[in-house]
């Protein structure tokens, strides 16, 4: 979706402000939110792409004025309600009132913690040969799906070069909507800064994205 989360190339947000000696968490609740998101994802309540989509659906004015973990919290709460793991009445009451919905991988307990310390695997067997090879010229499609996509707006319509082939991976556009993994070839595609940003762009800069095959046409 063409949401406010798709920030590449936007102006007006000001300087980057690094915080010296930044703590891992600024407030205790942030750590609880992180842990709940990881735990409920590992228990099978949702996949990573669905959780990203729910953050993207936060209204723009709320998204821009919320801290990072506040966005995580808002996305988590709404997603768990919509997927039937809790109800709005329970959220309002602050207590469970309805029977639990079964989790695909069961309750997240202490014995599950170590397995989430390593990222999940996203590579899948290839359903078809790759359409592109390293060095090929490709054009990012001019597409504007209203659902989740990982093709940022700032590359759409532009021509780049295939630099790496990462094999076939779970396709987020399908997985986010719970339409299956639909594995697709994944490439690093590199664009010239001036092709993306025009004559005023930095001539010494190049930008790459990781693009799934359905995002690309031959050029």
């Amino acid at each position, binding site marked *: 979706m063409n949401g406010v989360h798709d*920030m*590449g*190339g*936007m102006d007006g*947000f000001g*300087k*980057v402000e*690094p*915080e010296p000696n930044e703590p*891992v*968490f600024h*407030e*205790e*609740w942030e*750590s*609880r939110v*992180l*842990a*709940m998101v990881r*735990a*409920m994802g590992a*228990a099978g309540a949702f996949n*990573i792409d669905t959780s*990203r989509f729910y953050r993207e659906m936060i209204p723009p004015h709320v998204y821009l004025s919320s801290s*990072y973990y506040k966005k995580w*919290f808002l996305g988590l*709460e709404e997603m768990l309600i919509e997927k039937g793991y809790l109800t709005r009445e329970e*959220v309002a009451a*602050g*207590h*469970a009132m309805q029977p639990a919905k079964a989790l695909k991988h069961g*309750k*997240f*307990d202490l014995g*599950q*913690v170590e397995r989430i*310390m*390593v*990222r*999940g*695997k*996203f590579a899948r067997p290839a359903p078809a040969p790759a359409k592109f090879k390293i060095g090929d010229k490709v054009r990012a499609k001019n597409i504007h799906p209203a659902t989740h996509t990982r093709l*940022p707006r*700032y590359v759409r319509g532009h021509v780049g070069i295939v630099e790496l082939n*990462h094999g076939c*991976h*779970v396709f987020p556009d399908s997985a986010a909507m719970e339409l299956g993994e639909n594995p697709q070839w*994944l490439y*690093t595609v*590199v664009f010239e800064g001036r092709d*993306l940003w025009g004559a005023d*762009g*930095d001539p*010494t*800069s*190049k*930008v*790459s*994205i*990781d693009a799934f095959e359905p995002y690309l046409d031959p050029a």
Partner: protein
Amino acid sequence: MSDHHHHHDHDHSELSETELRVRALETILTEKGYVEPTALDAIIQAYETRIGPHNGARVVAKAWSDPAFKEALLEDGSKAIGTLGHVSRVGDHLVVIENTPQRHNMVVCTLCSCYPWEMLGLPPVWYKAAPYRSRAVKDPRGVLADFGVEVAKDVEIRVWDSTAETRFLVLPMRPAGTEGWSEEQLAELVTRDSMIGTGFPKAPGAPS
């Protein structure tokens, strides 16, 4: 965000609306039998203690010291790091990108906050915030200037937007004047930002 930290034993009257909502959610998830609070504690403890940039620093220091390891690391980051028992375990799809005198690499996630957690820990606020995510791809030298970092005009700046489940770790250039240093000494020079590409390693003898 407020400057003071709240703890579990405070009165509800002192808690913000967000804190109350987060607590309520955890209560519901616990009562419904979805999660065990001690398991949440263990996740938090891991990110506060075990998983941080020291993991990436060990990998970088090893690559600076061992040419065969460096070659393997650039070929397949996940596989090469998997051979180092003492470093945090790493998942698939880690790509290590080398800074050279001709090219400076910088990593961003314009769409959300993708970051190599296992190597660097949880990302800092600036990495996840709008100024970095919006400008890194359009004005990378301007962003580097915000960090007080200047890269020579004839060096290519390559920005890697992490738009999939691949994760990128920058291998910075080894500082001059470190000949004969041990991996442990070298690791002390490797900063988090030097592995994101928004900084350089510390110079030998510089205050830490």
